[in-house]
């Protein structure tokens, strides 16, 4: 299959949706003439022009609020946050206006917006620039949140997010932007395009002994760990990628756990009330009798993000850490 980067996959999704619906516009800091701080939107301003791809001043509350307001009349803005960390200066617009306006109007208004951008650590940009607010967003009824881990998912989920009539917040990863992945040509697809529904998890690797459940870049870490577990310990790990955190595919998670009877959640989120806490608490409630061991978690080490490159690497989940954790609850086939 054709291979493109995660970055290109998102760009294709944006480009196709700009073509698909004239109400779709892209907005954000440096997304147009500069081609995007992380080059996700490269070439789109040139192709679509000022009326569809717009640079914004450094006023996240202002332009996101503006996008929300415009969406109430039918515009479908796809708004880039250069980093999701900057969401906090716009948090009232993001958490209050976008999430509540439909509800408080008794369903008279809807808010078909997308906010997208990277939400990850691991690039040594320090505490204020390394937030992963997927748990805050997913806590908020009215919002949807999606965290693609591969180019394929990034494209398919982004397109669905843009077509969705509710606010969908897509959290990407600067660490993944350059990663290649299989993404079919539209010509090779039965429907001529790649759409992945929100709310469907994906088994990224099948296994029988333990479920490694994750979202975002941690999925990649789990896949690496699964490889080591298989090769070095004879443990067959299943890797479940949530892809979409809200809506959530609980069934796929539970099915996996019912099969493996053991699970670990892996995430870059901070531990206290991170996404993992929700998934773990759900699993123990709904698969209590299927569990042979407590469901464990690996999250970022619980401190603001460390700048120092080699130390920050250790602050976030890594494969051998996952392997070690698995070994605390799984019998290795060979040791």
């Amino acid at each position, binding site marked *: 299959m054709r291979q493109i980067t995660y970055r290109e996959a998102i760009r294709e999704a944006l480009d196709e949706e700009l073509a698909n619906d004239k109400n779709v516009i892209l907005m954000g800091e440096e997304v147009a003439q500069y081609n995007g701080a992380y080059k996700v939107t490269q070439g789109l301003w040139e192709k679509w022009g000022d009326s569809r791809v717009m640079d914004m001043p450094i006023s996240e509350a202002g332009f996101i609020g503006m996008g929300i307001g415009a969406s109430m009349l039918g515009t479908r803005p796809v708004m880039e946050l250069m980093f999701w960390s900057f969401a906090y200066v716009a948090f009232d617009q993001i958490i209050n206006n976008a999430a509540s306006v439909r509800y408080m109007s008794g369903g008279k208004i809807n808010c078909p917006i997308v906010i997208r951008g990277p939400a990850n650590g691991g690039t040594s940009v320090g505490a204020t620039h390394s937030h992963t607010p997927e748990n805050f967003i997913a806590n908020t009824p009215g919002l949807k949140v999606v965290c693609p881990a591969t180019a394929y998912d990034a494209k398919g989920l982004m397109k*669905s997010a843009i077509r969705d009539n509710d606010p969908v917040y897509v959290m990407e990863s600067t660490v993944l932007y350059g990663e290649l992945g299989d993404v079919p040509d539209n010509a090779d697809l039965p429907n001529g395009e790649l759409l992945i529904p929100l709310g469907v998890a994906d088994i990224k690797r099948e296994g029988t002994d333990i479920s490694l459940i994750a979202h975002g870049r941690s999925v990649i870490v789990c896949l690496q760990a699964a490889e080591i577990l298989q090769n070095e310990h004879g443990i067959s790990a299943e890797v479940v990628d949530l892809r979409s955190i809200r809506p959530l595919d609980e069934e796929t998670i539970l099915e996996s756990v019912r099969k493996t009877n053991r699970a670990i959640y892996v995430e870059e989120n901070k531990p206290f009330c991170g996404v993992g806490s929700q998934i773990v608490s759900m699993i123990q409630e709904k698969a209590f009798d299927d569990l042979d061991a407590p469901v464990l978690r690996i999250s970022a080490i619980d401190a603001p993000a460390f700048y120092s490159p080699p130390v920050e690497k250790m602050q976030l989940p890594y494969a051998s850490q996952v392997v070690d954790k698995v070994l605390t609850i799984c019998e290795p086939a060979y040791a």
Partner: protein
Amino acid sequence: MSTSAKTTPTTVTDPTEFATYAINAKMTTEEKIHILAEMVRVRRFEEAAFEQYQKGKMGGFLHLYNGQESVAIGQISLLGQNDHIITAYRDHAHALGVGMNMNECMAELYGKITGCSKGKGGSMHFFDPEKNYWGGHGIVGGQTPLGAGLAFHLKINGQKGCCLCYLGDGAVNQGAFHEALNLAGLMDLPVIYVIENNGYSMGTSQVRSSAWKNCLAYRADGYDIVWDMINGWDIYEVRAKTQIAIDRAHNESRPTVIEVSTYRYHGHSVADANAKKYRSEDEIKRFECEFDPIKVWRDRLYTEGVLTEDRYKQIDKAAKEEAKASVLFADESAYPTVEDITKDVYWEVDNDTIAGRTGRHFFND
């Protein structure tokens, strides 16, 4: 106008002069009387709401508009098909002004399913998008970028229209407002920010909450946005000066910031126990006597000879009856049920689409 503010009107405000502005000169008698009737409707609605609130029929807050009627009603009288409005939590007058009926508004205050927001919004969150009314917003200043967005939609779709976005004198100190001003100035948005300056944000007078020069609207100057001041109790002035801003929006796609001097008679909300502590009884009285917008307009129409006392009584009676009927309607309406709680959260779920049926959207149990 408010005693505590250093503001002075920008122009000599001779009401007879404003009466000669085209937009006013061409008004028919019925149009003039309609404005009066609308103001009276608002006043009677608020009074009825106040009464029922005191009886414990409502929850939460109730922010009344008494004293400010000429602002919303005067301005709304100018709006056309592509003109939109959005405001803060003191939102009943704007709702009634755009043509919402008292029943749905009163029922909303009661939290009934027949309310304009199905009982989900309450006093601060009235909406009627079909009438170009986008709420009713509780977070101070939070509606100001939304207002820019409504204007932005008009602009990028080539519609000749504008958005009137209201905020209070306290709200000017929220950062979101300034971000919105910069966007409006930079992107040539047809938005009109109307600062309803009633002299106080809760118990804090303008001098205690804001640093300013000339007036609050003057902050717009820093963004190269045209600004103006209006004596809000005078319908002719409100209409004359607002029309200039509307024309600017329609014809030049340029924003305006308007500061309207006005006054609220009640406390910040009905539950404001200090309503008469941070300002004198005298101050309140003076406004009620000299600047009550309904009286001022009624008396002008008397003077102009277009209104009779009988007609006024009729208007007043009709408004009272409408308000009374709305109380009955609200009293008799049903409450929403627990099942309604998870409705109106997601469009896709409400519309039972495939997306709405895929994955779990709600997480109790």
